């Protein structure tokens, strides 16, 4: 699908869509206390969200008017932040995820969400 979305505008949309998708996934997983999966989904959401900015930059270099996409990204960042803040109030700051067949993983959930919010706030 990544190659179908060729072009800086299309890539921007692609990355924002995936960022939205993984944020929703993370929120749902946190609600069901699936912290490890939620944590990973949030990492993915952050990764795609960070990329959107790169494609906006590229679009600007290509002399495309990016005003409407910047607005879109700003609004998305606001909504993401709102969702992340609501999630952070319902999860523990740290969590030790003990898998059946592998060593336990310490998840610093509070730090992770703060980091995610920080990534979004840079845009706002």
């Amino acid at each position, binding site marked *: 699908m990544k190659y*179908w979305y060729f072009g800086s*505008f*299309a890539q921007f949309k692609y990355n924002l869509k995936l960022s939205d998708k993984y944020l929703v996934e993370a929120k749902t997983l946190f609600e069901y206390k699936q912290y490890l999966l939620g944590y990973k989904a949030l990492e993915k959401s952050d990764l795609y969200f960070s990329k959107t900015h790169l494609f906006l930059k590229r679009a600007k270099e290509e002399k495309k008017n990016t005003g409407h996409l910047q607005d879109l990204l700003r609004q998305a960042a606001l909504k993401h932040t709102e969702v992340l803040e609501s999630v952070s109030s319902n999860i523990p700051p740290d969590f030790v995820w003990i898998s059946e067949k592998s060593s336990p993983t310490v998840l610093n959930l509070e730090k992770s969400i703060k980091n995610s919010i920080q990534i979004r706030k840079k845009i706002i």
Partner: protein
Amino acid sequence: MKKYLVVVYILLILLFTAFSYLFVDPNFSYLKSIYTSFSFTHRNFTTILYVIFIFLFFLFYLIFLKLAQIKYLVYRQLRFIILTISILLLFSYSSVLSYDIFNYIATAKVTYFYKENPYIVMPIEFTNDPSFTFVRAANKISLYGPVWLVLSGIPFYMGFNNPVLMLFTFKALNVAFYLLTIVLIWKISKNLISVSFFALNPLVIIEILLNSHNDTVMIFLALFSFYCLIKNKTKLSILFLILSILIKYATVFLIPVYVYALIKNKEKKNINKDRFFYYSFISMFILFLLSPIREEMYSWYAVWFIAFASFLITKKYIYYFVVFLSIGLLLGYVPYMYTGLYTSSIILLKYIIIILSPLIYTVYYFLFVKKSVLAKGL
């Protein structure tokens, strides 16, 4: 007499080419110097002129068809007429009755200039581009297939990103396919009436040569696919049918007919061309009738079945039905042209006008023609 007829017809086409420039879009700033606003401020006069043009075109069309029937119109003369009208209308203004050519240009620009996927990014997203201000479907992603997108690269690069030049390069592409379709109809039918039926049909002329719709590209590829099938080049035939479908998707409705022909071909039985074109005509006509379900019944969709009807000239009902429906479809533009409105009542009026002329002919045919044929038979 015939020579004068051709001269008058060509003069009429020339006048129509000039008439088309009354419709220059006020937003198309590149032609600001010749913008008159005439068609917007003198709607009554423009509409009357248009109706006169349509009736004269059909009068000439019927005369030429008659001349072809009595073998008074020869190949050389017909070729001259077709080439002359193609050249003249190549220089007409494209968006008299439709703005699709601007959509083709916009989609090509999104793809080849901005290097964006037109199935994801809409022209409206390039807010600082003045060349999209006159595009009517700027808020839509590409409506056409990938083969059309590839083909549109040719006129786009030949137009050097100049909107006025591109208007003509895109038109030239459609004119080329119009001529190729005619050559193919001639190759398949070897009949001048069939060629005249398609090539001189005012609806085909207006929608393809004037309004520059890409339907003829799709139809040419479909016809070429059938031509390959007749010549037993099955693989090539399948390839061209797929290419045709990937222009505007409509020819997907030909697949059942195509499979039927393919089976006949495999059984080493000769394809009954008449039956084959008849089924193709029916398929495309059904699709045309179903088009309001998707959006609206646009007159250029008639090109889909007119091309196949040109092989059915012995079927008198179809022959005249298509002629009368073509009149109805072209007159269907009148309510909008006259009022400048596109409300539901105007669309309803358009449909009434479209239906009226083929309906009158159908009633006439079944009341008088069919009856007299039956009476003679008895």
